[in-house]
């Protein structure tokens, strides 16, 4: 699977990327070739009728084709066979460009579905029958509760739970992640395996947990195929608007014919068709479905699986993001961020002691303490390899090292260490320890006391560490008007400090998982759309309630079923990418609609004077572009109308450039770019084409 390299929240796509960008965006030549074939199939009227705007062009081409055969079909006309033929050709090409855009957008989804389907049909299983023998059956014959054995280099036939064994499994077919993961019996996450993934070491005994046809792989195939077919709510609304605009322009143009005949102004019906096609919003009509499909596709390329385009669109709409602290805002573990000696102890001594105390501490906190101390000047000492480690226990709540030189170093919770030094060494607790402890707690960090031979030397400060760039991202969300709420089981002090540091809008501390549901309902009651991530079974109700629920692939099945999106990378931060993808999808539609309609102004001025040049010569004053002849004026407008489609295909597939800005700023920018640009571009384009035509005509 191609993974996008650029972050959608960061500026990436230029306004109109050159064609080579298509390849860079993952639309390589096999997809282009396939799209060429598929685009021809889409000329089928049964498919065309689903897109009313392009269907009108298609019908128009039929009319002009008839006029090519017999130019006087609808009455006397000066138009030649050739001219009508050229008009017909341009119309057919216009439809074909639209087909091509859609086919190209669908291409990768189709390819993905085909490859998944291929995997799924190839699956076989070694089922364990009652007497312990193994029989080889097709994976589709497996039922819930069957036991199967999977050996090294075999594909796991069906979703299931590991009963016995430990093995590395390559899940890249689903997640795209090539590093294998370990699977073993007994743990919530690591015991569940997915059909289609490959065991690459040892063997596993698995109990099947999915019914035939309902495995994750099956669902994934269904999603990839169906998500593209459903139109999103805004897409439907826009289609309605575009269809009515099309109808209006058909009426407008058709109403000219009787009036022209009254004025004895001969009018070529092919020219009227040309006027209709030029005025109806073909640009957006041709690209609308490609934009939607590409949006879903982009979600997929960010390694997220959407149950429908609706979910992606809704992501662009969310007002409130509910974020877990751990894993989303902060990296999973706390890290040492300061060493604070008590009065009378040198910093160097504390640093050295903190390092030595962590020699045998393999927890992430311990490793981070050792690393931090080394950076601060601690040095390994001779004979430390012969030291004896004391592991952390729930009873003592301390760990440490006994060094060969007789030093006994301990670190642990401040109250435990205090008790330890008074009870074992009868040493006083330094008077400023309480103050230090409080100082650390106020900063939302956890203090650990360090003692050497019964002397408390100072405090290690363990802090939550924000993920890189999280502050910027929260800032971007705020400029977009999205509220962020952090939910954490931590105490309010810690939670508030983290929230302030990361720049979150609200924090819910000491929260139980059920409280997410309450929180979502509260936000929704105020009319807000809510997005959240989750992985546990107890997240499932909240994931289902949220407007956008993003489940982690490593999460439990109920969570994945309740959510409308699944992140195969299991990275909760991706929720932010999802927002960007959703917005980009909407913006692309709005921008191209504006562009398409703004184009009409120039087209009126190109075609209207050309229609009646003999009967009403005065109208040539409207020919502001100074187009050479009526024929070349009409053809230029039509050619511009057709060519703009392939020129904008890269934009439709990649989405317009998106920057996290306030609505005002975005509106101004896109209005200038696509509104004013859409007004001006066709004047230039049509004039240039007209100049070009003058060379051949």
């Amino acid at each position, binding site marked *: 699977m191609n993974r996008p390299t650029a972050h959608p929240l960061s500026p990436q796509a230029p306004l109109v990327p050159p064609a080579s960008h298509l390849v860079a965006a993952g639309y390589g030549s096999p997809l282009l070739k396939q799209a060429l074939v598929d685009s021809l199939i889409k000329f089928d009227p049964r498919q065309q009728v689903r897109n009313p705007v392009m269907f009108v062009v298609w019908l128009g081409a039929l009319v002009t084709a008839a006029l090519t055969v017999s130019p006087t079909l609808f009455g006397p006309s000066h138009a030649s066979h050739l001219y009508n033929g050229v008009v017909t050709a341009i119309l057919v090409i216009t439809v074909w460009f639209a087909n091509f855009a859609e086919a190209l957008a669908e291409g990768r989804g189709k390819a993905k579905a085909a490859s998944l389907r291929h995997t799924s049909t190839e699956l076989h299983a070694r089922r364990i029958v009652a007497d312990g023998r193994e029989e080889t059956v097709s994976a589709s014959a497996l039922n819930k509760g069957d036991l199967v054995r999977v050996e090294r280099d075999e594909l796991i036939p069906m979703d299931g739970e590991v009963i016995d064994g430990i093995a590395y499994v390559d899940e890249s077919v689903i997640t795209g992640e090539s590093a294998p993961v370990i699977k073993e019996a007994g743990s919530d996450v690591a015991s569940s395996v997915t059909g289609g993934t490959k065991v690459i070491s040892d063997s596993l005994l698995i109990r099947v947990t999915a019914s035939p046809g309902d495995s994750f792989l099956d669902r994934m195939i269904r999603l990839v195929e169906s998500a593209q077919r459903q139109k999103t709510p*805004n897409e439907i609304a826009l289609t309605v608007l575009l269809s009515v605009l099309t109808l*209006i322009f058909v009426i407008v143009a058709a*109403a000219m*014919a009787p009036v022209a005949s009254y004025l004895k102004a001969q009018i070529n019906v092919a020219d009227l068709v040309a006027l209709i096609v030029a005025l109806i919003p073909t640009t957006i009509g041709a690209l609308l479905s490609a934009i939607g499909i590409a949006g879903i596709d982009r979600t997929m390329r960010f390694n997220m699986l959407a149950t429908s385009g609706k979910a992606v669109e809704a992501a662009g709409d969310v007002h409130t993001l509910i974020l877990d602290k751990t894993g989303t805002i902060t990296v999973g573990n706390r890290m040492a961020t300061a060493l604070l000696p008590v009065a009378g102890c040198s910093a160097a001594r504390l640093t050295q002691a903190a390092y030595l105390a962590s020699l045998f501490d393999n927890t992430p906190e311990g490793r981070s303490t050792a690393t931090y101390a080394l950076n601060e000047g601690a040095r390994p000492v001779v004979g430390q390899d012969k030291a004896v480690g004391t592991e952390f226990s729930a009873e003592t709540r301390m760990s440490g090292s006994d060094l060969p030189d007789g030093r006994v170093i301990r670190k642990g919770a401040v109250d435990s260490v205090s008790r330890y030094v008074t009870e074992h060494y009868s040493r006083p607790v330094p008077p400023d320890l309480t103050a230090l402890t409080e100082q650390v707690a106020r900063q939302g960090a956890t203090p650990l006391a360090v003692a050497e031979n019964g002397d408390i030397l100072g405090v290690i400060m363990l802090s939550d560490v924000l993920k890189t760039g999280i502050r910027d991202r929260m800032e971007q969300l705020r400029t*977009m008007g999205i509220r962020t709420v952090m939910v954490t089981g931590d105490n309010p002090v810690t939670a508030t400090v983290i929230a302030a540091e990361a720049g979150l809008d609200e924090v819910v501390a000491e929260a139980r998982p059920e409280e997410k549901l309450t929180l979502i309902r509260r936000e929704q009651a105020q009319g807000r759309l809510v997005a959240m991530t989750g992985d546990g079974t107890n997240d499932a109700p909240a994931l289902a309630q949220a407007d956008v629920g993003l489940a982690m692939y490593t999460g439990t099945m109920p969570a994945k079923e309740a959510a409308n999106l699944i992140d195969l990378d299991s990275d909760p931060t991706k929720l932010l990418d999802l927002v960007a993808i959703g917005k980009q999808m909407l913006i692309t539609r709005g921008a191209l*609609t504006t562009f398409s309609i703004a184009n009409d102004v120039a087209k009126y001025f190109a075609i209207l004077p050309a229609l009646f040049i003999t009967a009403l010569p005065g109208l040539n004053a409207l020919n502001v572009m100074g187009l050479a002849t009526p024929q070349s004026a009409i053809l230029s407008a039509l050619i511009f109308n057709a060519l703009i489609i392939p020129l904008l295909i890269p934009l439709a597939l990649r989405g317009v450039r998106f920057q996290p800005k306030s609505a005002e700023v975005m509106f*101004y920018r896109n209005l200038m770019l696509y509104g004013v640009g859409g007004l001006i571009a066709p004047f230039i384009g049509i004039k240039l084409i007209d100049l070009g035509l003058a060379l051949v005509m």
Partner: protein
Amino acid sequence: MSPFWLQIGLTLLATLLLSLVLGRYLARVMTGQRTLLDPLFDPLDGLLYRLVGRDACSRPMNWQRYTLHMLAANLAMAVLIYLVLIFQNRLPLNPLKLAGMEPMQAFNTAISFITNTNWQSYGGESTLSNFSQMAAITFPMFTSAATGFVVAIAFIRALIVKDGGADLGNFYRDLIRFSTRVLLPGALLFALFLIWQGVPQTLDANVAVNTLQGAHQTISLGPVAAQESIENLGTNGGGFFNVNAAHPLQNPTPLTNLALLMLMSSLPAALVVMFGRMIGNARQAWVIYGVMGVLLLGFLAMTVLPEQAGTPLLHQAGVSLQAGPLQPGGNMEGKEVRFGIAQSALYAAYTTAFTTGSVNAMHDSFTPQGGMPLMIQMMLQCVFGGKGVGFLGFLVYGLIGVFVAGLMVGRTPEFMGKKIEKPEIVLVSLALLIHPLVILAPSAWSMVVPYGLSSLNNAAMHGYSEVLYAFSSAAANNGSAFAGLNANTPWYNLAIALVILLGRYPPIIFLMAVAGSLAAKPTLPPSVGTLRTDTPLFGVWWFATILIVGALTFLPALVLGPIAEYFAMATHHLF
């Protein structure tokens, strides 16, 4: 004579000031607050409530009930008007013993007046009895104006309703309150003013006089002042006299001319101010007012300047076209010498912008380029527009604009905190479709059928302009005529009546459905991610939407009418 721009500028300024004062008052009236007039009119309200039914006047209505009651009441009144017209010979107050109206013409007239259109295919003084003038003409001038206005009120309430309430108020209560607090006192006051200025108000028949030249002349009289004040206050436009406000007894002085302009413009403009107060967002109202104002200024200029400039043939003939103390200059054909160019063009622009339909000059005789903006204003129907419906028409463009703009900022579009989704877009699109359909289809048809062409007074482009104007006027419920077209034929009576109906009720029904849908939606709290619609930038966008989606749609039709005529005129072709 003062320079024309000064006359126009002062009129516009007066409109602005009047609408500010009136807007505040309207907001008080429509939100049920006390007004100074309450002690005077509360008893009348009580009487009317009892007449309609106390229960019916207090029950809150959702959009379906509101619309249904509005339609039913309109239908009942239309039937009444129709009966009065065809049986006027058997009804009292018919001093001239006029016969009952032809059924087809009565059908046309009933529809025309119940819809606030006031298209007249008859000549008032020679066709209608005094009773008919009062019961079939003046009465619906009140109710049709109030109907359009209260529909807009119901729509505005839908925007204010928080969290899924479905009630949009009570149709009868709104109708009665608006009539007794606004229309009735306003009409009364201005009727007195007009009488003072010399407009007749009598139940007597015509007077016969011997003129100074010894000729015999019959001067038509009747309850003119009463009808005229509501005619303009209610943006109705149907005159007592055939030539409407060009008649010296209907519009005797420059002061009455100014008063008529104030009457017709005050309520539609005040409605916008009222809207701002009702929604509690004056900025939003100013954006709307600003866009409407700029449109009005533009179209006004497009009318006044060519009229003042005159025509190439006049130039060639060496006529002085400069306005001076002794002559108005410009194209004076079809204009009253009393009013001159500025007042005539101003009146024409006002009457089409506020879709009133009363006229003080013959629009048929305007230059092609000066007559075109009049048509465009009716095609748009939202340059302030008529009572309520103009405002709603303006919102149609706004909703379409907000939909596309909302997508452009990456949000499901919202208007005033209400999401604009598929149901609204379907309904708004249909409302958008109606107008070009009912204007362009019948006017195109009329150009190829003998019963359509036989009514034309002029040939070629100008002939088409006459027909196009007639159907634009009908669809916009304006009622003014380009003249020249003989509209009293079965085809035009029927087609125009149908266009009036289709131009009036379907858009109202669609928009009431939008109101119902919006009212049921929660109001979303605004954030920086919300596209604001109360900024100048959005105003520009709104303006562009109206021009590109609204006005340009009619460009092909205009090209074959006034625009082609203009270019032909430049080469000295006349029609």
